[in-house]
């Protein structure tokens, strides 16, 4: 219902429950009413009182002064925003604040960018009537942290940093100590930033109206020539970033408030881990291996070398002896050209991408149940749901911005976490099903069993929207629950409670990560998650669905663009004649219909001599693919290994040709985030001298091999893509706007927030069954290797760490550690920080121990961010039976205290 109130005697409409400040801002400029403690991504707080206005219940009636930020508008009331009284109050308050704020504006970091300064000017402060008294100007600066800084002499106690830490990140590191005039911001237990529990998200620095909390890049106030909006290159959340550039150099990064994805927030990596881009280690010239040595060459020499070799191998063995791995870190357009290079130019379907080693089971599983292997809903629907199920994901580390939203949710509403580790979310969750690694299928079957047994199915939804339910129900009810309880190690009563909570929630949303997919039964687990959603009717509306947390910035896009060996661009099945014809017509060449090798199959083929050449676009398979020694053996058999890279990685060291590529800051294109949102990546700076965007490199090779392709240009590339990828039909570079569009994008340009609304992509949703099987990794090795190692990620680093290790993040997290339960540590006489020798049937490594109850006894956990540790020497080549995603999450190992000494890189 529309209601009216008067602002300075002019009537305006407001909605019920609206606060005066937001009401006024709707019709006047943002700073019409000055404020200090108000911030756009924080709840009203009402402490600065600068936003005070006068309100009368009737015209010329008695007025009352109220803080406009937290006072609801009353119908028919008269609000006076700039009465004499109000102006005086504002001026006097700011004057009082200035009595304890150093007036050294000219030399202050935020001079000219200071909200206090602006407000002081606006309210017309000319002098401060108070004599000099006790103040806090002598507080020491805190420069302990590689990124965060504080200078609390400048603090005006507006609580914005504390609220940002609580409400945005949910870390609760900052708080107010002392009372009244002695109140001051403290970090953790009055530590400095470095020693505190700060996760360096920078939300406090961005929120601070003065320079009391800032960062080493002076992001708030840095002097820049231009600010460019682009998309983060790290995880699949797809944060929008505002990058400040001066003299062609990146100066700082801030998170724009109008970004739908991240609403003014981002994480340590997005905000601070950009300095890798001009690190001295950047590769700046093509290198060709001559007499065993990588020697500098010109681009033409490198291209000629590659073309010659490719043609030679192609004529000698055939096109199927050549393979490529594309990169989920690169743009859609680059991925599209990469698969086009292989399909249309070389003539093989041996093209895959790192989606294989993370969410390929999600794609396969959800295609079988729903028809589309992508997130069904959008992240912001976290605000519209009643319960969240998080399976095998640690988003507070791996998807920090979504993780923060999930953490905020878990503090208020019920959450179920299925994870072998006591992750941060698990600590907040109402139900934590702490299962043994590799038993997702068992636990999910238990949940489904209890839902059926309790009669909590959504009969209507099942009847109208799905098929195969009777068979499924039969299968589910035949599960031996006691047996599954023993297998998974999770109390069946707890599983029952969680299952009932999930089924009874009006709207339940499911998120999952690599803890679901990187298993022998990854695809089956995904299908059971789909079953859970279907059996409870949690599909096709707001606040529900099955939502994979995609790992890399563009892993969704790499698969969308056809960088997989069994489907072309747009997931079309080229084994079908009509699709095959469509592609042939579109590319104007003859194409192969033979399904290509998936990544693990490529390495096997190399060892067997069936693959002779490989082009890697920015992929470090040696460090990140499982069973490193096997990967190294496979690559060493190649006649041609081409690597596009920005740094010399473990893989690049084995290459015959290295082509120096440009980073995300140096190129344009689009990334598709985990919620199918196609967003514009805009070049912030020119490519570092000597480098080229991957897209241009691929196009150069395409042209060198005799196919005509115009130079890399995202606009024309998208035009081509929109003609062949059905769900990109309406995508146009100039129409993507600042927040992008979620596919499918219709020809008229309208996009899609929620999938499967009326019908499923495949028509009816298909119930799929699964029976738990133990991984051969365990059955074969558990006698000699009784521990289970599961791999994970740290917040601070990203994957192989190529980029993050080349920033000051390495001062915060300098190495991989092995998480080990105190019970196991005691058994092996391992103390905190000791080196531990971890052995699997494939090899052994040394890693530093961190004793924690995050893992249960018998379970170990570690990361593979550092090449020195070589964690993937241990991991197995066993893969998901359906999608061939490697089983990184279950490795049979044994441990002993190492004789090795800790080495810091």
């Amino acid at each position: 219902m529309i209601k009216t109130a008067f602002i300075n005697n002019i009537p305006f409409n407001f909605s019920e429950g609206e606060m005066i400040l937001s009401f006024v801002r709707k019709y006047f400029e943002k700073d019409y009413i000055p404020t200090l403690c108000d911030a756009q991504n924080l709840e009203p707080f009402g402490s600065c009182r600068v936003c005070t206005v006068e309100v009368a219940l009737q015209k010329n009636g008695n007025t009352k002064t109220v803080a406009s930020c937290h006072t609801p508008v009353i119908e028919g009331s008269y609000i006076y925003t700039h009465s004499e009284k109000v102006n005086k109050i504002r001026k006097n308050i700011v004057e009082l604040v200035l009595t304890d704020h150093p007036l050294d504006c000219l030399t202050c970091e935020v001079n000219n960018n200071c909200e206090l300064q602006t407000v002081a000017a606006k309210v017309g402060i000319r002098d401060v009537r108070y004599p000099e008294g006790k103040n806090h100007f002598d507080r020491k600066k805190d420069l302990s942290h590689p990124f965060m800084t504080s200078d609390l002499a400048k603090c005006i106690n507006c609580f914005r940093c504390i609220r940002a830490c609580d409400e945005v990140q949910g870390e609760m590191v900052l708080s107010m100590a002392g009372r009244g005039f002695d109140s001051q911001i403290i970090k953790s237990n009055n530590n400095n930033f470095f020693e505190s529990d700060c996760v360096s998200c920078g939300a406090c620095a961005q929120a601070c109206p003065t320079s009391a909390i800032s960062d080493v890049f002076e992001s708030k106030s840095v002097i820049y020539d231009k600010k460019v909006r682009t998309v983060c290159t790290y995880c699949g959340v797809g944060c929008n970033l505002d990058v400040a550039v001066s003299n062609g150099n990146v100066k700082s990064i801030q998170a724009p408030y109008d970004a739908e994805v991240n609403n003014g927030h981002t994480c340590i990596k997005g905000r601070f881990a950009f300095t890798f881009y001009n690190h001295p280690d950047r590769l700046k010239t093509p290198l060709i291996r001559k007499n065993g040595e990588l020697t500098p060459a010109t681009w033409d020499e490198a291209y000629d070398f590659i073309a010659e070799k490719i043609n030679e191998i192609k004529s000698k063995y055939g096109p199927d002896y050549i393979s490529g791995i594309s990169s989920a870190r690169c743009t859609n357009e680059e991925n599209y050209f990469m698969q086009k290079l292989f399909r249309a130019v070389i003539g093989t379907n041996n093209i895959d991408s790192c989606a294989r080693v993370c969410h390929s089971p999600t794609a396969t599983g959800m295609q079988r149940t729903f028809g589309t292997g992508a997130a069904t809903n959008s992240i912001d629907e976290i605000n519209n749901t009643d319960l969240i199920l998080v399976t095998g994901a640690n988003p507070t580390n791996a998807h920090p911005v979504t993780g923060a939203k999930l953490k905020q949710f878990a503090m208020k509403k019920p959450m179920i976490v299925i994870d072998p580790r006591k992750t941060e979310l698990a600590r907040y969750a109402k139900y934590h099903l702490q299962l043994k690694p590799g038993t997702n299928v068992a636990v999910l079957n238990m949940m489904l069993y209890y839902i059926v047994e309790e009669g909590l199915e959504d009969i209507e939804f099942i009847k109208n929207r799905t098929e195969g339910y009777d068979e499924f129900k039969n299968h589910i009810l035949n599960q031996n629950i006691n047996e599954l309880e023993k297998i998974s190690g999770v109390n069946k009563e707890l599983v029952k409670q969680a299952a009932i909570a999930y089924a009874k929630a009006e709207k339940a949303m499911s998120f999952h990560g690599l803890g679901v997919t990187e298993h022998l039964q990854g695809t089956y687990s995904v299908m059971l998650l789909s079953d859970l959603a279907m059996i409870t009717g949690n599909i096709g509306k707001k606040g529900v669905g099955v939502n994979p947390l995609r790992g890399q910035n563009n892993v969704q896009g790499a698969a969308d663009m056809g960088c997989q060996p069994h489907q072309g661009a747009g997931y079309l099945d080229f084994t079908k004649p009509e699709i095959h014809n469509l592609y042939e017509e579109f590319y104007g060449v003859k194409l192969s219909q033979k399904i290509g090798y998936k990544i693990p199959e490529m390495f096997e083929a190399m060892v067997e001599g069936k693959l002779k050449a490989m082009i890697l676009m920015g992929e470090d398979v040696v460090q990140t693919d499982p069973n490193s020694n096997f990967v190294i053996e496979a690559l060493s058999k190649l006649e041609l290994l081409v690597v596009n890279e920005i740094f010399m990685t473990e893989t690049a060291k084995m290459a015959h040709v290295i082509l120096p590529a440009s980073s995300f800051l140096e190129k344009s294109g689009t990334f598709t985030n985990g919620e199918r949102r196609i967003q514009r990546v805009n070049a912030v700076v020119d490519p570092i001298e000597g480098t080229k965007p991957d897209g241009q490199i691929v196009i150069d090779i395409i042209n060198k091999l005799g196919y005509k392709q115009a130079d890399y240009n995202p606009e024309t590339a998208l035009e081509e893509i929109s003609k062949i990828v059905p769900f990109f039909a309406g995508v146009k570079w100039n129409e993507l706007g600042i927040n992008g569009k979620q596919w499918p994008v219709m020809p008229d340009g309208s996009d899609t927030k929620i999938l499967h609304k009326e019908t499923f992509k495949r028509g009816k949703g298909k119930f799929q069954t699964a029976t738990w099987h133990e991984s051969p990794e365990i059955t074969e090795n558990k006698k000699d290797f009784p521990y289970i190692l599961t791999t994970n990620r740290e917040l601070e680093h990203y994957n192989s760490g190529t980029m993050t290790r080349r920033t000051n993040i390495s001062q915060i997290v300098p190495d991989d550690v092995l998480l080990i339960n105190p019970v196991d540590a005691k058994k092996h006489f391992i103390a905190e920080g000791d080196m531990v020798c971890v052995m699997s049937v494939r090899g052994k490594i040394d890693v530093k121990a961190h004793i924690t109850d995050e893992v249960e006894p018998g379970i170990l956990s570690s990361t593979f961010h550092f090449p020195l540790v070589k964690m993937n020497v241990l991991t197995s080549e066993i893969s998901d039976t359906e999608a061939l995603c490697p089983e990184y999450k279950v490795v049979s190992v044994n441990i002993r205290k190492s004789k090795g000494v800790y080495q810091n890189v």
Partner: protein
Amino acid sequence: MGRKILLEKTGIENINTYEVYRREGGYSAVEKALKKMTPEEVVEEVKKSGLRGRGGAGFPAGMKWSFIAKPEGVPRYLLCNADESEPGTFKDRFLMEKIPHLLIEGMILSSYALGCNTSYIYIRGEYMWILRILEKALEEARQNGWLGKNILKSGYDLEIYVSPGAGAYICGEETALIESLEGKRGNPRMKPPFPAVKGLWQSPTVVNNVETISSVVSIVNNGGEQYASIGLGKSTGTKLISACGNIRKPGVYEIELGISVEEFLYSDEYCGGINNGKRLKACIPGGSSVPILPHYLVTKTANGEQRLMTYESLADGGFATGSMLGSGGFIVFDEDQCIVRNTWNFSRFYHHESCGQCSPCREGTGWMDKVLKRIEYGKGNMHDIDLLVSISKNIEGNTICPLGDAAAWPVASAIRHFREEFEWHIKEPVKCLETNYGLVKETELEA
């Protein structure tokens, strides 16, 4: 002799023990309520009684109770505010120390009326010995079946816990009290939402003063109408007044609301007049936060009417010539007292107790303290007086909680009524030393 309700039995030996309290008719109200009355009927009696909140604001208790939200499946809480910290106020301490079971009986009745199964007594940390008295009394009540499950087989369950504060005046403000009870820093919350909708643990909550809750016992025993028959107009019942300052008989008195200030101040039944034969200079009738009254406005209003001990009469004349009944902290100043020094003393208190959340209060209380100190030390100038007025106006009404008002009113009223004395401090700093205005040497003050 006026009728006594709260202090009626405090003279009985060992009334602080359960046996004596019960022997004297204690807990009969609980029996009556739980056996014969519905919760709504108890609320109705309290409404009829006209009982007003005794913590200071004087809001009708029955009405406050009827505001409590009753959403399905959400617990409700009663919190007893025993964080008595207002300078000049010490009535709750006396009541809890002398007759702890009266409060507990009142808590049971009030919790029953509100439908609370868990209630808390939030007591100021400095009252640790009273906390022990209350805990002992609660244990006695529990052992005798007045607390716990299924009290008197009525199906009603109740637990009462005592929780101490840690020395912050601000935690007597109801939302700060709630924050503190939740284990957080005692910062007041914004309203709305009001505690009756979202209070402790985001559940509907009523916060009542010790005296208010204790008064419920008599209301249930004798009926609301009987209670309302005591007092005058909308000031019904009796009120505890803690009298202090330059009077012959300082102490805690229970008065029937409606007696004259003159009677209270000068009769031997109460304060017994000014000490040592001195003359009255000023009086603060309701605790340090309320406006100070000069001698000519204490027993008479500006209209020349007799000033009565009621909410209405004490407020007669508004802030210009009136004050407030407040929490009943009756502070009397004789002719030897220095108003500037006293005002500074209060300002120092509020400066120390401001939580620091709202900028006007955090900075403003500090500056009032500093400027008053300067004037008291004979180093002020004439602008300082206007500066003080400006600061007090700036704080008043411009903060989340009423601590800002409480800090502003004493300064504003002292200047309003004793401006000459402030000016004199500035003009004649040396002369002050020789007079009864009490300006003292800086060294003496800082010792």
